[in-house]
């Protein structure tokens, strides 16, 4: 029997797909797949570093997509969950999928499939929340700016949504946790990294980075938020269930509650 190997990749999705390709191609007994930023050597297995190759990644992507569109979505979403051990779980998922002609990714009685589908659901929920909870603030240089701090790395997933919605305004959404953002310059969306001096939560304290009109509109919105509440139906439990507290600091209507 061949020795099992720990494969190390650069942490990108394409890097992961290249790793999957290599494992299939060289029929490697995979002990684990790890990011190079968090690699740990196994005691009884060798390690090998995999270099990202777009053409190989593309072949794996196409191969999965040919099997099923929902499967490729599952793989990508689950990968973005950044859960510990997700790489090995996905590797198993992909391997099972290619091992038979059956649509194994629909087998909800299988633990791997079920676990993946739960992760996909969580990431999908976070994506949807970000589409809802992003609060743009208008800066002096006419860019609509928002800071976010999502649980999962959902920025790549929400790009299209904001692009098609705000086609006629410049906007920038910056993930303060992962330190990168998306900037739309009226033509295309680019990935940017900034040297932010401060994190622009929606605090009561005003910053001169934003226009004064901006604060007027925040004020109007907060007022609207209060007057649309029906006091005789108050249900704070339901409220926090829908808008968990960890998002509050970035939402202007909740700034007084933070």
């Amino acid at each position, binding site marked *: 029997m061949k020795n099992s190997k720990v494969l190390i990749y650069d942490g990108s999705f394409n890097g992961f797909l290249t790793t999957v390709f290599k494992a299939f191609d060289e029929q490697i007994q995979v002990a684990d797949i790890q990011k190079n930023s968090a690699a740990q050597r196994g005691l009884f297995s060798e390690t090998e570093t995999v270099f990202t190759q777009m053409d190989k990644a593309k072949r794996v992507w196409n191969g999965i997509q040919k099997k099923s569109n929902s499967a490729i979505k599952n793989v990508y979403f689950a990968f973005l969950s950044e859960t510990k051990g997700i790489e090995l779980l996905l590797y198993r998922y992909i391997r099972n999928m290619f091992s038979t002609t059956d649509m194994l990714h629909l087998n909800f009685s299988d633990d791997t499939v079920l676990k993946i589908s739960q992760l996909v659901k969580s990431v999908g929920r976070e994506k949807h929340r970000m589409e*809802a909870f992003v609060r743009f603030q208008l800066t002096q240089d006419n860019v609509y700016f928002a800071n976010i701090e999502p649980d999962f790395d959902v920025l790549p997933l929400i790009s299209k949504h904001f692009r*098609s919605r705000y086609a006629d305004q410049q906007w920038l959404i910056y993930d303060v946790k992962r330190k990168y953002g998306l900037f739309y310059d009226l033509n295309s969306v680019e990935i940017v990294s900034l040297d932010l001096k401060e994190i622009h939560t929606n605090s009561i304290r005003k910053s001169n980075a934003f226009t004064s009109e901006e604060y007027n509109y925040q004020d109007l919105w907060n007022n609207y938020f209060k007057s649309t509440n029906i006091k005789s139906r108050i249900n704070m439990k339901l409220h926090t269930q829908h808008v968990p507290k960890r998002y509050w600091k970035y939402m202007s209507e909740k700034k007084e509650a933070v």
Partner: protein
Amino acid sequence: MSFERIKEKLNILADAAKYDVSCSSSGSKRTNTNKGLGDSSGMGICHSYTEDGRCVSLLKILLTNHCIFDCAYCVTRKSNDIKRAAFKIQEVVDLTINFYRRNYIEGLFLSSGIFKNPDFTMERLVAVAKKLRIEENFNGYIHLKSIPGASDELMREAGLWADRLSVNIEVPTISGLKLLAPDKKHEDFTKPMLKVKNEIIQYKEEKKVLKSTPKYAPAGQSTQMIIGATGESDKDIMYSANHYYTNYNMKRVYYSGYVPVAEDSRLPAIGSQVPMLRENRLYQTDWLLRFYGFSINEILNDKHPNLDIDVDPKLSWALRNLNHFPVDINAADKRMLARVPGLGMYSVSKILKARKFRKLNWEHLKKIGVALNRAKYFIICDSHQWEKRDLQAYQIKSLILQNSQGKFRKNYSGQLSLFN
């Protein structure tokens, strides 16, 4: 513009509009093709939730709360002594655009008190929508209220700019309407509904021939009923809802527990509890009718004119019809699976897919997410263990109630609370 003045108006006119329940922003197909602002082609988004747990998806305001009518249930009725205000058309447009650009809302829900006459009011509502679409190149969601009694021509134009139109019938029975809103006639409500329904049908026909036919109310129409204001039974409400679903092709009927807003001998007193649990049961019934393949007379009929308060309507139906159970999870068709208490449509779909690979047992069902505490009395699966006792309906019910918790339980429990 003066923000202070706008703020005051916004407070008054948002406060008056909040009793409209509808906040959906889905179902439209308006894509952003012209590099304009907004897109409402995807699913609806709730951008925030108020402290009462309701979704905030649209900027929901009245154009004005001046009203010539005196409907007892309504907070803006003529005889109520409250502050009155009115927005200018441009003010509504500016608010909508600026809120939308900051990702606060999905669009606008514009309603109004009726000033002068219905047509005069409807004209103003249409003007706002038109301005947003043409001058601001706005592709977000617009929900306009159809003013009862508005002319057919205005209703036609409204549908060209709006995504959804709605008339609230408010009172489910005609006799109730006579009592609470003596100035309004039942036909005033149904006439615009009928017009919109016919326009939508016509649009769909024309669209088949000419692809560029301008959209007409792509998200359909909806209506709303007040619950618990006139002593109507659940059967009255749901048969009425069913009537609007089938005869007017409603996308949604909303149920709104009556919040007492005025002292009136015809209505529940101020301070009486909002019937939230009843509202919940009605929505559950609504879902059973629309997604689970139930027909109305199975759930509500002369023998059972009201829904059970302590258990949900599906469980209640199952307990009355034990002869259909137990259902075999590995063999039953979709229709029957959907009727098992504790199985939602997501679980049903997962079960249907998973059972092609193997026979499912309790362990699988639990992981799929079936509410076994209710389902276990009604199903058999790939296991030798199932409910073998010959339990009567009342026994099953009490077992389920004993082994579960309900968020509304304290409202109807006969047991006095020790700490309160």
